[in-house]
């Protein structure tokens, strides 16, 4: 069994990523005059500027066979993620939130319905879809820079190019100076930032986040929420995040997708039309959070 990517594929990925590099430089030049906060923009604008990285789930269902019994995990999930949009999936444990991400990234297969990225059915796992897991999953034997560089192995870029991209992303997640550190020398929050950098360095169209802040203490969690928002606004990439924390979802996302448990179905989609930075004490913020919470506990 070989995991190598067909040549045509690699070519496609690198064509996309070079397009992205050009796009990025143009944008950072444009944004350089304004403050970083002002760079956070509504998703509709991103759609206009970018028009790719659109993810569609059409009537996606997934069932597992356990001891000869069929177990419906997901049933008829319909979801459209706009390019550059931040979506949070919330739901009780066991409602198949993570399964949705695993299906999108290609780690789980054999589903019904269609999953399309830029109107094309998704293939086996590839670098156009990045994922950050709840556990950082860094290789303990690789330094920070090598862990991040692992993401560029399959792109066939030159060593210099890889080094530049890796350094850029280490700086992006605020870990400058930790290039040669091993994972055991990092705190949980730092390790998770490395994982985020690893997810981003290959410049995917969409970044999937499977409860990435779930295992962190609450203070680190708040910090990383801010940073994630900063990264999202700078990278202008679509993000789909699974979380248990409704407040986190309200703070981060453009839309909150509330899932019902067993089998997982989309119960309601709540639009969070508040500008960033969001104030957790704002009555509108609280109202949205409450709406999502009551939907969850219904």
């Amino acid at each position, binding site marked *: 069994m070989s995991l190598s990517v067909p040549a045509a594929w690699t070519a496609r990925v690198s064509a996309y990523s070079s397009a992205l590099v050009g796009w990025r430089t143009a944008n950072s030049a444009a944004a350089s005059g304004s403050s970083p906060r002002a760079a956070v923009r509504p998703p509709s604008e991103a759609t206009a500027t970018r028009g790719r990285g659109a993810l569609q789930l059409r009537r996606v269902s997934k069932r597992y066979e356990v001891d000869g019994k069929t177990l419906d995990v997901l049933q008829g999930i319909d979801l459209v993620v706009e390019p550059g949009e931040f979506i949070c999936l919330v739901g009780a444990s066991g409602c198949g939130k993570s399964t949705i991400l695993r299906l999108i*990234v290609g780690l789980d297969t054999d589903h019904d319905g269609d999953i399309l990225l830029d109107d094309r059915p998704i293939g086996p796992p590839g670098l156009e879809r*990045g994922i950050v897991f709840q556990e950082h999953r860094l290789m303990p*034997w*690789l330094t920070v820079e090598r862990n991040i560089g692992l993401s560029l192995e399959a792109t066939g870029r030159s060593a210099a190019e890889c080094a530049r991209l890796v350094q850029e992303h280490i700086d992006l997640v605020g870990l400058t100076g930790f290039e040669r550190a091993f994972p*055991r020398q990092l705190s949980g929050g730092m390790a998770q930032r490395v994982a985020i950098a690893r997810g981003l360095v290959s410049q995917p169209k969409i970044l999937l986040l499977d409860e990435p802040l779930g295992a962190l203490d609450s203070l680190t969690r708040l910090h990383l929420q801010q940073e994630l928002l900063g990264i999202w606004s700078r990278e202008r990439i679509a993000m789909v995040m699974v979380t248990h924390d409704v407040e986190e979802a309200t703070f981060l996302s453009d839309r909150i997708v509330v899932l019902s448990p067993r089998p997982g179905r989309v119960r309601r989609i709540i639009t969070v039309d508040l500008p960033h930075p969001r104030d957790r004490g704002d009555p509108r913020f609280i109202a949205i959070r409450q709406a999502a919470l009551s939907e969850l506990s219904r």
Partner: protein
Amino acid sequence: MSISIPSTAQVASRTGKAPGTGIRFGRRIWGFSQPLMFPVVTVLIWSAASAYGWVSPQILPSPAIIAGTFRDMLVGGDISANLGISLIRVAKGFVLGGSLGLALGVAMGFSRTVEIWIGPLFRTVSQIPSLVWIPVLMQLFGIDEMLKLVIMVKACLIPIAITSSEGIRNIPRHYLEVAQVLALSRRSRIVKIILPGALPSIFSGLRQGLSHLWVSLVIVEMLVSAEGLGYLMSWGRLIFQLDVVIVCMILVGVIGFALDFGLQRLEARCLRWRGTGVSG
């Protein structure tokens, strides 16, 4: 805000930094002397036992006699000649057995078929002590170097193959999923994920293999050999010179310890990412 993680070298120099040179030196001495406490006390009791005649010197020669015998054997060249022969045998056996064991372990680790075909056989054979093989193998290979080589290879190959194959197969699925998501080629997956992940198991297999090899070599030399440390020991027993036997016993222990210590240092160097100590 600038935080920096100290490099390994910095950490090493920091832990070595004590308030004064005198205290540092004292700590070093204490560090070295702790493991020697029990042996020293044992020798003292042993000396007392001989001096006060608690045990007859024919049964247990005094430490002074042992030391004298050791000096004579060292000066006379008995030790260097026989030890040299034993160590050359160890080197040959470990190079051959180690590389065969690793090759088999890798094959068993990566291929389900190879594991199914020979895994259970290996696990069964590993339960049979090397000593038991000697009579059969003597019929096949005679009593020369070939016999020793075969026994040593058998002694170290099996633990090495079994532990390294288990190390390869037990790479956490989490890591393999990362390899899949990052679209790593088969080669990168093996070189960057599987082999480094299996390295701790491979090292524990190598250490276990080397110590099995050493023990079985000494036994083979005691039973069928005209030279080597084991032979020296059985010769001492034959002429009822227990001092010679005890000198050889101590040497067997010390050499075995040194061999393992060497591998342990190599392991620590190759697995720097684990930090100091297994628990990191």
